[in-house]
């Protein structure tokens, strides 16, 4: 209990003093997870919309793969990305291993199935009568796609929050492909692991508080959006 209280004190001190090491870790975390989420949304939102709207051969297989992807063990994804970007791997020449780029790839693989399937489910819940009406009013395919995305916006926000939650709290894959290099690939989760092992509980707790804060803010934004939609 004493350690915990002391840890909290140190954490608050670090947060108030804007410790440069702490800020560095936060900055890398935001950059990496933000990019991974951006890529996931860029691919996942249109893909989920098309999957929700269009019937085509092989759709069931893609959907099954997507649902499987939602439960991917992060460490297995990390291993896969590690092999892909290791010196003997197919993308070894890129030199991305132990850089933030490989972390972005791993996190995108983890977030993409979540974002896509949440959007798909949301699009599937849109009344077929609305889609027929939009077509009758003269929408082009692109306009229909955009209108459906806007109608499914609540699902899209949930998808983003789920994707962000999955990647910001991820540690296994990030550790494997990023290597937890100070000032370069060290993010909030990997730093917590390291600091805890080294007995710097205050620093680890400060990072933990920030992680919780991020999760809290994300949920607040989501709830505000939901409230606005329901009102």
């Amino acid at each position, binding site marked *: 209990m004493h350690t915990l209280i002391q840890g909290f004190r140190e954490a608050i001190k670090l947060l108030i003093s804007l410790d440069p090491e702490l800020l560095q870790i936060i900055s890398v975390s935001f950059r990496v997870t933000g990019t991974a989420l951006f890529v996931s949304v860029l691919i996942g939102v249109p893909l989920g919309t098309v999957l929700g709207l269009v019937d085509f051969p092989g759709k069931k297989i893609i959907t099954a793969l997507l649902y499987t992807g939602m439960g991917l063990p992060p460490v297995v994804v990390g291993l896969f990305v590690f092999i892909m970007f290791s010196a003997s791997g197919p993308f070894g020449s890129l030199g991305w291993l132990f850089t933030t780029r490989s972390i972005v790839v791993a996190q995108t693989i983890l977030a993409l199935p979540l974002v896509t399937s949440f959007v798909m489910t949301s699009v599937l819940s849109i009344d077929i009568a*609305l889609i027929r009406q939009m077509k*009758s*009013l*003269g929408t*082009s395919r692109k306009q229909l796609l955009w209108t459906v995305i806007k109608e499914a916006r609540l699902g899209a926000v949930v998808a983003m929050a789920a994707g962000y939650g999955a990647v910001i709290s991820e540690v296994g894959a990030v550790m494997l492909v990023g290597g937890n290099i100070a000032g370069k690939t060290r993010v909030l989760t990997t730093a917590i692991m390291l600091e805890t092992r080294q007995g710097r509980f205050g620093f680890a707790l400060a990072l933990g508080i920030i992680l919780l804060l991020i999760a809290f803010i994300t949920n607040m934004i989501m709830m505000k959006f939901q409230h606005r*939609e329901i009102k």
Partner: protein
Amino acid sequence: MKTIYKVEDLSKEYDGKEVLKVEDFDLFQGEIFGLVGPSGAGKSTLLRLLDFLEPPTSGVIKFKGQEYHQTKEPGLDIKRKITTVFQEPALLKTTVWKNITYPLKIRGIPIKGELKSELENLITDLSLWELKDQRADKLSGGEAQRVAVARALIFKPEVLFLDEPTSNLDPTNISIIENKIKQYGKRTGKTVLVVTHNIFQAKRLTDRVGLLHRGEFIEIKERDNFFNSPDNKLTQKFLAGDLLP
């Protein structure tokens, strides 16, 4: 009268079952046509084919002289001349104003000058002015259907289809919508086809009426002749409220 639609040997099947079989049907420019018939007669199916929302299984639909069939559908420019108001209003989760102006937005038409005043008049005529900033998903059934009618009329479609537009609405809402439809058909010279199983509505609104039964046209006549001197026994039974689906 100039023909705007000409249908030849049109057929639609679902799971191998033929639900529509129209050998010959003409829709004239500027008329208000009433399509009547019992439930399951194929009225809504015919509307979906004429609005090019679904392809026919076989047969030809000629729209303004151009032929379309199962493998040849019209381009977006042609489709944008036609629209349907369905029984369910199907509004977007946004304001009344944004719903009504949606067809203009997708066509890239700016709301200014004469169009702006036309839009304001349309909204006022349909008693929607007070509601224009409200969210559409909070409207009553009648209000929502009036929004759907305004949304369809704002871009002045050459052909307006209405599929049971006033079912389950109260007399006030029915009256507002019927007046607007009639006004649109008569003042603009555009073509209107209204599906209804309300005989009185068909009498109030239309110039010509056709009875569809089990996917086939039984009788098509001028309104007064259709109601006063029907030739076919099935039409007589329908008017007597005695025709089963």
